[in-house]
């Protein structure tokens, strides 16, 4: 999990989280036994559909303003350390 979430945990933290997550998931047992076979999952409280915007151009941001917030940049681009693999 930590790897997927890009977090690293000390041994101590790992123990603590395992304990706490276990307790939370234990508590969630109350819903595991519920009969929900006839229910559809609710991903969203609204029943909206087809919300669109027109294909009309709006102003972009100033590159200087955006890059001023970047930890590192070069030649108008965001600079990142070397990437070890291609996108998965």
């Amino acid at each position, binding site marked *: 999990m930590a790897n997927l979430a890009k977090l690293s945990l000390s041994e101590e933290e790992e123990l603590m989280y395992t304990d706490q997550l276990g307790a939370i998931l234990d508590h969630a047992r109350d819903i595991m036994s519920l009969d929900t076979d006839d229910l559809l999952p609710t*991903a969203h409280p609204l029943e909206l559909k087809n919300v669109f915007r027109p294909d009309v151009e709006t102003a972009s941001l100033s590159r200087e303003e955006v890059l001023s917030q970047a930890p590192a940049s070069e030649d108008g681009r965001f600079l990142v*350390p070397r990437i070890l693999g291609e996108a998965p």
Partner: protein
Amino acid sequence: MADNSIPSDGVEGFLPGWEMVVGLEVHCELKTKTKLFCGCANSFGQEPNTNICPVCLGLPGSLPVINEQAVELAIRIGLSLNCTVDKSIFHRKNYFYPDMPKDYQVSQYEKAINENGILELPLSKKTVRIERAHIEEDTGKSVHVGGDGGRIHGADHSLVDYNRAGIPLVEIVSAPDLRSAEEAREYVTELRSILVASAASDGKMEEGSLRVDANVSVRRQGSEEFGTRCEIKNLNSLRSLTRAIGYEARRQVALIEAGERVVQQTRHWNEDQGITSAMRSKEEAYDYRYFPEPDLVPLEPSTEWISEIRTHIGLLPAARRERLTALFSDVSSGPVYDQIVTAVGLGLDDLVVGAAENGADPRLALARATNEVASDIGNLPRLTIEKFSDLIKLESQSKLSATQAKTVLGKMLESGADAAGVAKSLGFEALDSTVIEDLVDQVIGSSPKEWERFSSGEDQLAGFFVGQVMKLSKGKADGKIVTSLLRSKRS
């Protein structure tokens, strides 16, 4: 260094006893004015990071809103591929990568807007099943600095440009129905024509608006089971596509024949070395943790909207081929049919049909279009149907020889001038038949032996006489007239 000379006609012939199985995923950039979820311009080749806003940069607090035109173009693609267009939702595909502003990609996963279509290949006459054509957002682009010539491996650091992030894509996924590199090429060519004809995409592979991933596996001829497949990512030309598929199939056969097993993996095509290699991705079986995108609501196009969109689709390649075929008698295959496929593939069919409507000879128009015009396709916009028709007429009326007509057409494409004007400026006024007859008589008189042989039936000497007349006329004589004069004088 690997062998580059891979035949493009599939496994048959270079790997006897084996069959390759190919399915393609084609990513196509949609021709909208703005991005999928924000109002930034959808344009290519801008200064880095100038087409960005809070939404496509994934800034905290920003939210996506779907571009209606992107949905319309996606539906056009679906309808053009005979898909079922139905309700769909968006999911998030979660993975960390610097060119992804939100570290998730918004894509359609469980339910795509277009499903279960087909695409007919014009030459091999094969039906390829389309599993789905779904909407998703493009990522940004990185350049790699330091190390070995801009490659990701060995680079010192990378620089990211998010102009492309959020450009609308449709990913068209075929079933594993293709059986050779040549079929794969034909599939992409035909698909590209369809995308261009429906005005959904500009189909420019060289600008990255069409990118292909190929799933390749092999199996013993006659086997019904699929082998383990490998996915080759990011093939961005037809040449790369056919070479990569050919190489990969052969690699897999070699592995199996050596008693080893093909490992399912994502592979990268190296154009220079002509080989595929396993991508260095840390987590090979990545868990994308797909879940419904809570910031968007479902798409549910009404039947009225779908019918309206249907009327916005231009004439598709199959119909275009039929339109051309109707100009000739019985050409469902053979060289003329091949020319028809080429003309439609290159978008030259309107020119040929227009010329025919203007009374020009369709066969000649088709030939000139698929040869001379095709070889200078960049200048096509300068050539009007009227000017092209005039040229074809001049040639068929023998006012220009074939050689002259080709030269004139070349100049017309360069300058946009009309046929008669170009012909005149080049001094290509066709000689009238009395002048030609004088020249024919002159040549007969100076070559009595040859004339005697020709008269006694050695037909192949016609070429000799035509050549001599051409020389004397400095190419202005019409070859057809010369031949008929020679024949009439012989009898």
